[in-house]
């Protein structure tokens, strides 16, 4: 079979003269064709191979896999079509090679390393994400989602929803299209704008650990309308309940979804005392001081290790609430408050909290309109606190004096490995000194790390 197959391109390439003269085709004249791995002397295929081919052909009606010998199993798996219905393959085939073919066929570009090097997981996660992202409320049957649950429940660990479709109903005319606030107000009285309800899905995915969601539409182009980017109260309510019901969740990320104070409070209320939540990311939202207060409350009623709320609207009061919680907290390792409006009031509060806190290692306070007074408190922190490894103060107008104060504090510190004071109008000298200290600390840490490794 292979011989004929390999012959045909040759025949196509050459003029008919070659066809007449058999000797011209070198393959015909050869006894052994070493370069073709499929080539074999046997003219009649083996019965076992025929059987296996039959199994492959009728796999959809009669999936036989586990009963086969390992050798035959590989043979079958190699030849199964990636377009077989998932109902047949989902729980039967665990071979990664098959799922790799499925993924490649469907998406082409795949980076399996971000899925724990499991092609199957990648396939099911992306498949489920696609289904949800294309789900249109009231138009799509929820069974399309629920039908997938028993198939992918055991393999889905992370859901990264990059868009959620609003219903197709005639969008209500908004009066002010240019004002985001009024648009969000609009969402409240438009019940038809609710998105996919996660409540029906999350409690069924027993292995879900990460959940990323964005309430917006990708690539709307010129069809842009504000109400495509809505996060309604009912959405928030259903999402919060769904999150509460998902006990295995470790990481939650809600980006760019116009989460304001009220919604933030609702979400936090449902996340209180969550058994496994470790990381919360509410960046690029509209959380203000009240939302920040709610987050502060959450800090001490959960096991959060990473909190990221950059690019929000938190001011001094909210920062004080977070700082109050931080002072008593003993689980948080990383805090990111970049691009908020803490000001000196908030910055000082956070720094004061750090004098008491002994667990936080990583702090980002970039772009928070902080000035010299915060720097003075932070220099105290640098002297007293030796758990903090990394601090980012970029884009704050600390000024020359603030830099000097920081430099003094830094001289007494031995734990800081990273200190970002770019664009803070600090004098070059203090910048240099601080970077020197950081470098020394880093080298020491590196050396220590190396010796530890060698010992191990």
């Amino acid at each position, binding site marked *: 079979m292979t011989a004929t197959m390999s012959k045909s391109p040759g025949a196509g390439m050459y003029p008919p003269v070659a066809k007449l003269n058999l000797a011209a085709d070198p393959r015909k004249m050869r006894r052994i064709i070493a370069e073709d791995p499929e080539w074999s002397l046997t003219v009649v295929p083996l019965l076992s191979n025929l059987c296996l081919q039959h199994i492959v052909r009728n796999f959809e009606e009669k999936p036989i896999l586990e009963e086969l010998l390992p050798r035959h199993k590989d043979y079958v798996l190699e030849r199964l079509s990636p377009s077989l219905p998932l109902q047949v393959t989902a729980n039967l085939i665990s071979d990664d090679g098959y799922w790799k073919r499925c993924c490649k066929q469907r998406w082409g570009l795949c980076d399996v390393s971000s899925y724990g090097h499991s092609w199957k997981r990648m396939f099911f996660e992306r498949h489920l994400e696609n289904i949800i992202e294309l789900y249109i409320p009231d138009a799509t049957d929820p069974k399309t989602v629920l039908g997938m649950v028993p198939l992918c429940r055991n393999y889905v660990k992370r859901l990264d929803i990059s868009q959620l479709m609003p219903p197709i109903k005639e969008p209500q005319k908004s009066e002010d299209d*240019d004002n985001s606030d009024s648009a969000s107000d609009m969402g409240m009285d438009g019940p038809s704008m609710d998105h996919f309800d996660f409540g029906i899905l999350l409690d069924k995915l027993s292995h879900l650990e990460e959940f990323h969601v964005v309430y917006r539409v990708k690539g709307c182009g010129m069809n842009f309308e504000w109400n495509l980017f809505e996060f309604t109260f009912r959405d928030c309510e259903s999402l919060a309940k769904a999150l509460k019901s998902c006990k295995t969740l470790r990481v939650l990320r809600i980006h760019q979804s116009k989460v304001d104070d009220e919604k933030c409070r609702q979400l936090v209320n449902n996340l209180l005392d969550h058994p496994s939540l470790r990381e919360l990311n509410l960046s690029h939202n509209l959380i203000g001081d009240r939302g920040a207060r709610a987050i502060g409350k959450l800090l001490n009623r959960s096991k959060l290790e990473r909190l990221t709320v950059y690019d929000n609207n938190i001011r001094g009061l909210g920062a004080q609430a977070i700082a109050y919680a931080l002072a008593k907290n003993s689980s948080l390792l990383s805090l990111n408050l*970049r*691009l908020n*409006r803490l000001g000196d009031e908030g910055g000082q509060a956070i720094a004061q909290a750090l004098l008491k806190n002994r667990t936080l290692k990583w702090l980002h306070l*970039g*772009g*928070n*309109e902080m000035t010299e007074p915060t720097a003075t408190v932070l220099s105290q922190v640098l002297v007293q606190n030796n758990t903090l490894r990394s601090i980012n103060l*970029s*884009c704050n107008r600390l000024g020359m004096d603030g830099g000097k104060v920081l430099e003094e504090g830094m001289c007494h510190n031995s734990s800081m490995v*990273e200190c*970002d004071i*770019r*664009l803070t109008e600090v004098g*070059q000298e203090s*910048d*240099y000194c601080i970077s020197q200290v950081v*470098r020394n600390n*880093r*080298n020491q840490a*590196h050396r220590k790390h190396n010796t530890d490794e060698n010992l191990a």
Partner: protein
Amino acid sequence: RKKMSQAGNLREDTEEAGPSVDSENPEERIAARRLRIAARSEAKKRQELGDDSREKKEIKEEARKSQHQVEQSEKVPLGLCYCYDGTELVTNIQVAADSRESQHQTEVEEAHRLRVEKLENEAKSSLEKFEEITRKWTVAKMKEIPQDLRDSLSSQQQLCALLIEDKNKLIHELQKEMKLSDDRYVKDLKKQAEDVDLMIERMEDQVKFLMGSYRDELDQIENSFEHERKILLTGNRKKWEQYTKERRDKELENVTQRMKRVEEYEVLLQQLRTEDTEEYNMIKIKLDTDVQILEQQLQQMKATYQLNQEKLEYNFQVLKKRDEENTITKSQQKRKITRLQDVVNNLKIKCANQEKQSREENQNLTDDYTRIMQQYKHMQKKMRHFAAIDAKKFEEVWLMNEEEVKALVEKALDTDRLVHEQQLGLAWQRPSLAFMERCGPLQPQRQTQKTAHQAISELLQEREGSEGEHSGTVSVKMVKKLLELLCDEAGFLIESKLLKLLSPLEKDEQSLMKLDSIFTAMGIESEEDVYKLADFFMKYRHTQGEQTQVRRGGGREGELAASHQPSMLGLGGRDDTEDAAYWEAMGDVIPEAKLKIWGALEAALDKYHIVLTERSKFITDTQSLKQQNTELRMLLHQYVNSRVCVVCVCACDCIERVCVQNVFANLTTRPLNLSTFFS
């Protein structure tokens, strides 16, 4: 590692693609300056590190451990600083964007505030104006003149137009702002796109640079490997050549040696060949002669062979016949054997039956034996009991008789004494009665026992004496004979097992063993007992012969035959020869002389008796006379009482009294006469 490489590369890129010092944005300028400083310090450091690493590599080459080398070059800390600084370079863009964003936010806020203020102001002013207008409306209403009204209306219109114009202006301004912000948004987008491009570019540059540096390092490592390999190769080639040369020399040598040896061997071969041909000829001749001799012998042997063959054939025939005979006899024997086998089996069965029967019989007999033994024991017991009772009875009878006899003796003696003293008037002397004293109520038996013992012992002594005196040989013979008899007769005392055991022994020994068992059964232990037994038999025969003690012997014969018990012998040995004497002595208490006297006395007394009877007759006569007297007197009285005869009665009484007294006087005097008569 990628990050490290990025960092390394960035240094060079900063001058070209990074934020330039000449840029308009102050932040960018600052960032650019900072980058420049960092880049300079980096360059210095890199030079040092690079030198270090190269040096290290050389050292490793010397060490010639390629693995070690690789590890070391991995460890080179050149990436460490790059990492942080490189990320810093990349993040610089982000930081710049951040700062821009925050600035923008503040600006927006400020603008918002201003706008709100402005709007408020505007609202206030417009409100004022509006109020003015409304006020004017009332004024206008007051107007009655049409011109005035028109004027006022037109002024109102103007005012309204003014107000609207103001508003429009404001709207226009706001729209302008919006447009500005739209433009700004577009600009921002562009800027961001640029930033992203820049970031990507930097990253790529960094990657390139780091890859380049790593490739350099790799090349160096490879070079070192190559070098090492070359050295090794040349060394090995030299060795190889040396060895091949040695080999060639040796081979040459070997070849020459071989040639020499070949020549030598050829000479030797020639010599050997000539020698061998000579020898061959010699042997050939010799062997020819041998062949002839052997052929002759062969002929002879053939003849003898023929002969032997015939003989053997004959023998074979004979043997065949014999064999046939043998087979016939064998079959016969076999048949016989089977027959005999049957017989043997039958006999075996019979024997088994017999054995069974005999065993049963034996069982029955042993049962009988035990039963009889029990009976026998019972009988013995009874017998002993009766013997004891007999003895007691005998004793009692004896005592009773003795007492009786003694009483009789005493009575006889008493009568004798009375006879002597009263009738004869002689002095009576008591005869010596020793035996009377001796036989108290219990004493006589003890004495008899003792005497029996004594008698036995005496008898024994006598026997011994007789043994010693005259018939020592006889008694030995007798004993021997007796023992043999005992052996034969008392076979029932010997156990059957013992008999079986004894059967193979000699007769003497057999009898000895048998006797031993009999004696143990009978309880005879010492020599004395043996003699006692012998004595008993002797005596038994003796008594049988004399038949003096028929009474006892007969009684005892059965006893003895049954028991042979020595205790019985002791009891049976009681002597009763003395008894007769004893009893005779008792009988002879009154001697013959006295009896004669008593006879005489009797006769005399008889005569006296006659006399007395006569007297008694006389007495009765007198008495009848007296009666007649009294009767007469009575009659007399009766007559007297008739007053006539009283005096006579008295007289009669007196007479009577005298008569009676006379009679008595006669009677009393008579006994005296009798005594005198006796004497």
